[in-house]
């Protein structure tokens, strides 16, 4: 385990999270222990990684239900736009141009009834979805109302989205806002849901047990563009949870954020 932990960022963050993860189900925790102990003698980090990731995939959404009652009214989801287009093509079997047209019309509120029905028949994701909400208002306000500028950069920083290359950090982010009534359950995030994503961190120190119901994002403190440094507490840590894949809800809102520096009024 020590060699795994010292094998690089992945091993380091994974072991740190596994030790602290309070939301992992007993079955998942047992499986992770089995994998780690099983590779104790082999000293083969690649084989360990293979088995570790398989275990992650088989224990998605094992963190138990988010205990907030009621759920936050408005949920927000943000994705790299190009990645989202690729997912839509794969999952719904439609062309990228069709997806671009539908989402452009959705964003401008110009979907015809026929296109609206088509969009609602499409899956919004193939796998469990990471979501956030506006924490100060308990999810009553729009989820991304914390933003001080309409730049995708701020959003990527706040959510810990990939920002590791200057080219990618400048790519547009597409966001969706929808009501939680269209979601059956919200799940607490676990190390298994994060898999090899090293930007995930178990919430530490843990809040009191009666309010320990969700995770928090890890904003980029290193701030590659050095734009947000010095602004204390911005971007804030956002609450995060997951839900099962759904189709586009009827009143979903969509907005694209571009890389720019214009401050919001």
């Amino acid at each position, binding site marked *: 385990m020590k060699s795994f932990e010292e094998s690089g960022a992945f091993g380091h963050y994974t072991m740190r999270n596994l030790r602290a993860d309070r939301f992992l189900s007993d079955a998942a925790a047992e499986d992770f222990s089995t994998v780690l102990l099983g590779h104790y003698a082999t000293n083969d980090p690649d084989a360990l990684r293979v088995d570790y990731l398989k275990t992650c995939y088989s224990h998605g959404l094992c963190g138990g239900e988010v205990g907030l009652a009621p759920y936050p009214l408005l949920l927000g989801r943000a994705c790299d736009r190009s990645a989202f287009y690729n997912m839509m093509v*794969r999952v719904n079997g439609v*062309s990228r141009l069709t997806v671009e047209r539908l989402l452009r019309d959705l964003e401008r509120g110009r979907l015809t009834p026929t296109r609206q029905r088509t969009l609602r028949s499409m899956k919004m994701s193939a796998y469990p979805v990471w979501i956030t909400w506006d924490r100060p208002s308990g999810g009553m306000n729009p989820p991304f109302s914390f933003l001080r500028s309409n730049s995708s950069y701020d959003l990527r920083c706040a959510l810990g989205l990939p920002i590791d290359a200057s080219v990618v950090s400048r790519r547009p982010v597409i966001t969706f806002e929808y009501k939680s009534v269209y979601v059956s359950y919200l799940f607490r995030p676990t190390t298994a849901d994060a898999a090899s994503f090293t930007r995930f961190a178990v919430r530490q120190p843990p809040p009191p047990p009666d309010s320990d119901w969700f995770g928090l994002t890890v904003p980029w403190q290193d701030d590659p563009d050095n734009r947000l440094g010095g602004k204390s507490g911005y971007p804030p840590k956002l609450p995060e949870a997951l839900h099962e894949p759904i189709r586009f809800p009827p009143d979903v809102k969509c907005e694209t954020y571009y890389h720019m520096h214009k401050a919001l009024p």
Partner: protein
Amino acid sequence: MPGRRPPILPQLPTLAPSEVATLVRALAHREPWALEALEARANEDPFDRLASYYSAGSFAVKSSIADGLLNYFTCLSPDSLEPRTEDQAGELQSALAFCATILPDLDADAAGRFLPFLGARLGSSDERQQRLAAVAISAINSLDALQELEGEAQRRHHPVWLLAPLLERRSKAAPLALFGAIIVWLDAALGDDNASTALQDGIEKMIEADPQAAVAQIEETLLELPPAQQRLLFGLIAELGITEWSLFSDIRSFVESDASTSQLSPVDLMKALQRIYSLSELEDTWADVTSSWERLIRRMPSDPVLEQKKWNYIKDFASDVAPKTSHDRFLQGLQTVLFGKPEARRSAEFLREVQREFYEAKFRPLEGTDVAVKTVTSRLRSRVATSFKHSGRTPTQLRIPTVIYAEEAYMETLRLLIAARFPDLRIIEVPGIPWDKLDSALADNECDLGLNNDDILSYDGSPDISLFRLSGPPIYKTDDFLYLANRTFLEDNDLGQKWDGESARAHCLFQHSSMERVGTAIGHLLQKGQVSVPRDTALDTKLSEFIASLGGPVDQIRRETSDVGLLDFLTGEVEMYFGGSLQTEYALRSWKGAIPLCRFSMPLEGRLFASERLAIDYPDFMNDLAAITTELHYAFHTAVPSYRTALGHMLVRRLNTALFQSSRDNVTAVAGFDQLRDALRQSPLQECRAGSRKWERWAPTGDELQKTHLRVVGGKSYEI
């Protein structure tokens, strides 16, 4: 590559094509070292992340990724191409989807290199592969790609899933030539939203390329198509809001022409209905919708046989458009034009049929009734199956009357709960038992269980009838009912100047007035006009008492069945209406001449009653039934979307069926679950604790007999 430090994605441009190919292949196979390079979450497909690096990459990066992908495809073994496991299939599909995502950015030559592989996948036996390959081919800008898709369409006899890729490819080559393809696929696209969207996209591209030529082409062909295809095409065009389209002006001139001389031919009728439907789908065209209906109705033939034929066409048309529209402005326009005039009574029967067809088609279950029933009962079963234990006898059947009031929705929900708890119990709906005759129907063994207002039964009950009543918190409570008046009548009697247009319909005219002031106004209005009230109901008695107590003219109250009374009001035969909430809601919704005058205070409690035989023979079952009613509030109000949609559909369909079966005079219909909930807002279900309701023997006695006497003779009793 495994075994050494994996590259990170920003290094992509510096990798050799063979290394990129290795990385792409490793990603497709979900190899951990490649996933680590992407920092993929468990819920991300590796190609999604690669797509974002692709989009941000330079030409060199894009080329090397495309080369890597092509290399991966060409090295796939025959076994990999026809995968046997879900994982294998997923890997290939991911790569194909990624291919479809990146091809639009490549030039024709670079993209064309993928065509042989994609063409082969188009002929695969795996449907997902076929579709993704077709989508990818549609992004290749070459004649060969178009021919590949055309050939496949012919070989497979134009399957709907090929429509979008084919039209997309054709639109790039020659947008104006699209219409030929659109016509070929119209039939296949009927009832398929995805295909309809593809057609709409195609039409939009034609119009973007050359509006005049596109419109001329469409107009030339449109009227030659079969009606269903016409309506589909017309609807798609109307949604695009091409208002300058000349066919609209042709139809406009038709509906605006002099009605007295021109003959309404079938083609005229079809054109007019197409126009009305198109207008009803657009915003801000309400005046056009109603004026078009008005002109059409004015030109209906006077010959009864011909008139019947025309109405039959309208009925078919309504049935055809109902599932395609998310609202009912098409129908509302017709209601608005017909109501408020004496001749509406003659048209009421036709309207009733049109409404029936419209709502039946609109609420026809898309995936079969069983899906909705399953969705509702599975959730309800989880609520009732574990809550109650039942060891005693259960009846084999339960007969429950259907009524034409909003409360039927509560009874239908209760039926669903009972069915969820007792799947083997046969529940029989008994139509035709009047609201105020439930007590005698239960006593005469015509039914077993029913919902009613407690005091109505007490008014009308006979002392020798013994029933069982569910005591404890009532099922629902009502505080008041709306009293409606005809807008023109109010204006003629100097009550019209107090509101401004629509505001009167949002709030009662006497919104915060005392009942004395309301009584004075109603007394004044009754000097000039009549009010219709459903006979033999508590509303009748209460209104009569109220008017008599103020010394008003009680002989101006016209007592009819709910159906006839509402029709009298909607056709202007009586000037005021005081009736059930469903009928009132319908009047307000379908006729702008209906104005809510006041909320008439009338506290009522709705309770369940059961026959003595059922209660004595099946005591355990009755206890269960009492417990089940505590779940009614949950069953009706829970907001889980799939459940709510299924329940809404079932309740609206059920209530419309009951309404349309009730009598030939009925015009009331429910437009949707929201409208039904609006109607029920004045009679909210009461929440209660488990065990708080119990069955008890009940019969009208004491003071209630005195009320019974008053009830039998209605308002005239005050003169005795």
